[in-house]
């Protein structure tokens, strides 16, 4: 008879506190960077009147997109009924909330007037997708919180499926809203597209799962809890499917733009002579961030090795950050097409590719956001029962037989 999976808090002790302290340093640095930016004004950053959203937004949008994707594992168990994923659902919910909090922290701290957050939460223009996103993000935290409660409270377990379903639908709407931030903009050629929203949904699947796998492997390893191959291989195979799906959307995006004559300038810029953006696209996003992880995850020689799986996940994250950088900053670097067919020049940098250099405060703030998310996860698994005591094959795998163990 199969044993029940137990959940247990991780132990405290010096290892816990030194890890938390290490992450805390990055959080403090991020807060210091935010204060420096707010006190002096944004002229100390690399963001300008031409590139208005910079590195903080790259990190923030990445974290927010990954947050909704991190909930995927829980959704697979609750909504699609796949029992091997059930033990991971709680951690998945925790990670989702933590990543969202981290992303939102970066976004809010980068505002020109972060002291006016109350204004943002009380005055709404409901034609703005940003306004809707405020509700979607806070609602997500509440709904996932309720979902986790349903999973943790034995008497509420019968509501897990329904709350999981709500959470699943909500996070699809949330990611659609995040992608629509860009998709709704007619002004810039890189954005004005209905493809943005579904592409962000698929990106969330990929980035969220990559982060989840890394967090799971690290949490189990450092708390000495067994993590069976069965569940790990399921996760990494799924990640491969998501990476390939993202490649598909990227391909459709560029192929469509290549067909449309007025977007040829943009495509030439992104794919050919955009300098850093072109290099980031081909080398980091496509090669290192998509094709290489696909190979690592599926080749028999590397796909069964934990080390290589971890490396593949890290590469996916790097590729994801590069993709966000290209979308957000590359999309602004390419000049607005205000006078088609004309060479344009002015004192306000019209008609030329806008330059941008990430500044230290921006990067530190972005990393600070990631640190906030990780700190929240570390504290969460310490104080509440998010992490299963064991994910060994005999507990997780429904088809496990002791014959395999002997072989």
């Amino acid at each position, binding site marked *: 008879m199969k044993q029940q999976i137990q959940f247990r808090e991780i132990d405290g002790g010096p290892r816990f506190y030194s890890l938390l302290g290490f992450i805390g340093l990055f959080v403090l640095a991020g807060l210091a960077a935010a204060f420096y930016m707010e006190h002096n004004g944004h002229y100390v950053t690399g963001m*300008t*009147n031409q590139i208005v959203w910079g590195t903080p937004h790259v990190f923030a949008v990445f974290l927010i997109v990954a947050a909704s994707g991190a909930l995927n594992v829980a959704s697979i168990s609750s909504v699609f009924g796949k029992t091997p994923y059930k033990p991971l659902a709680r951690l998945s919910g925790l990670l989702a909330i933590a990543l969202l909090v981290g992303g939102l922290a970066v976004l809010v701290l980068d505002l020109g007037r972060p002291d006016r957050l109350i204004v943002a939460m009380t005055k709404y223009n409901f034609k703005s997708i940003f306004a809707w996103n405020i509700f979607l993000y806070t609602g997500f935290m509440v709904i996932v919180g309720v979902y986790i409660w349903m999973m943790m409270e034995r008497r509420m377990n019968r509501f897990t499926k329904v709350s999981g379903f709500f959470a699943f639908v909500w996070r699809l709407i949330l990611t659609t809203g995040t992608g629509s931030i860009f998709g709704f903009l007619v002004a810039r050629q890189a954005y004005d597209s209905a493809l943005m929203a579904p592409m962000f949904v698929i990106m969330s699947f990929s980035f969220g799962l990559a982060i989840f796998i890394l967090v799971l492997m690290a949490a189990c390893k450092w708390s000495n809890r067994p993590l069976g191959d069965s569940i790990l291989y399921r996760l990494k195979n799924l990640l491969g499917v998501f990476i390939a799906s993202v490649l598909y959307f990227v391909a459709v995006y560029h192929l469509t733009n290549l067909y449309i004559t007025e977007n040829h300038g943009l495509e030439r810029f992104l794919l050919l002579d955009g300098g850093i953006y072109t290099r980031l696209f081909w080398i980091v996003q496509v090669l290192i961030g998509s094709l290489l992880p696909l190979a690592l995850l599926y080749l028999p020689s590397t796909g069964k090795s934990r080390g290589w799986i971890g490396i593949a996940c890290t590469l996916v994250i790097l590729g994801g950050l590069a993709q966000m950088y290209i979308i957000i900053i590359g999309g602004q670097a390419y000049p607005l097409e205000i006078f088609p067919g004309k060479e344009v020049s*002015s004192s306000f940098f019209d008609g030329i590719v806008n330059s941008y250099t990430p500044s230290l405060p921006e990067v530190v703030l972005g990393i600070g956001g990631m640190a906030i998310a990780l700190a929240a996860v570390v504290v969460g698994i310490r104080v509440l029962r998010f992490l299963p005591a064991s994910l060994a094959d005999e507990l997780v795998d429904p088809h496990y037989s002791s014959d395999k163990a002997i072989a």
Partner: protein
Amino acid sequence: MTDNAPTDISRRRFLGGTATTVAGMVAPGVLLHEVAQARPADEPVSSTVRWGMLIDTNKCAQGCSECVDACAREHGLTGHGRPQTDAQWIRKVDLRDKQTGYTQTLPLLCQHCEHPPCVDVCPTGASFRRADGIVLVDKHICIGCRYCMMACPYKARSFVHETLEDQLPDSPRGKGTVESCNFCVVRVDTGRTPACVEACTAENHNAMVFGDMNDPASDISRQLKQYESRQIRANLELNTGVRYRGI
């Protein structure tokens, strides 16, 4: 029908109707006359007026930046030696046709669209369109997210990247908020024209005309009706308040 009473009533009705008709013919003239003067300070703006600008690029001189200088003076747009982050509410744009080599120059400013994308995307409603057509930023509720800057098809908006001092009383502006041309709203509300238009006229270039596009008798309406004019990025169908001749 042979009674006197019905005939009397019908005569009264006729006189009443004539009076009403005459009043109706005269009243619009009276109303228009009132609109053409400065609106009283305690009266709210209304959509009976729509402020607009017509720029004749044929009269716009190469190398002239009177409108830009006047705007900077009027609003205290101090430069900090950092062109990438210094605010510009209006700028001269030089164009050269890639195929024909034809060159021209024109001032580009906030177009005060009827359907502004910046207003659509602002999460707090700080970017808004006043009833009389002027698109403004309510800097009291602007949180500095810069989404409107992403959304503007004309790159008309600027973000204040540093602490400001010595702002002009008629042009409050501060760090961390977004700003753009507001048609010199304080001047317009007190019966004057924007500083750029005034400067262009003072230099006798007369390339810029400002007025009420809803008033058929105004200078701008007559010119718009008589000469061909176009909107920049007209395909976006934003129905801009700023129109151009010669593009």
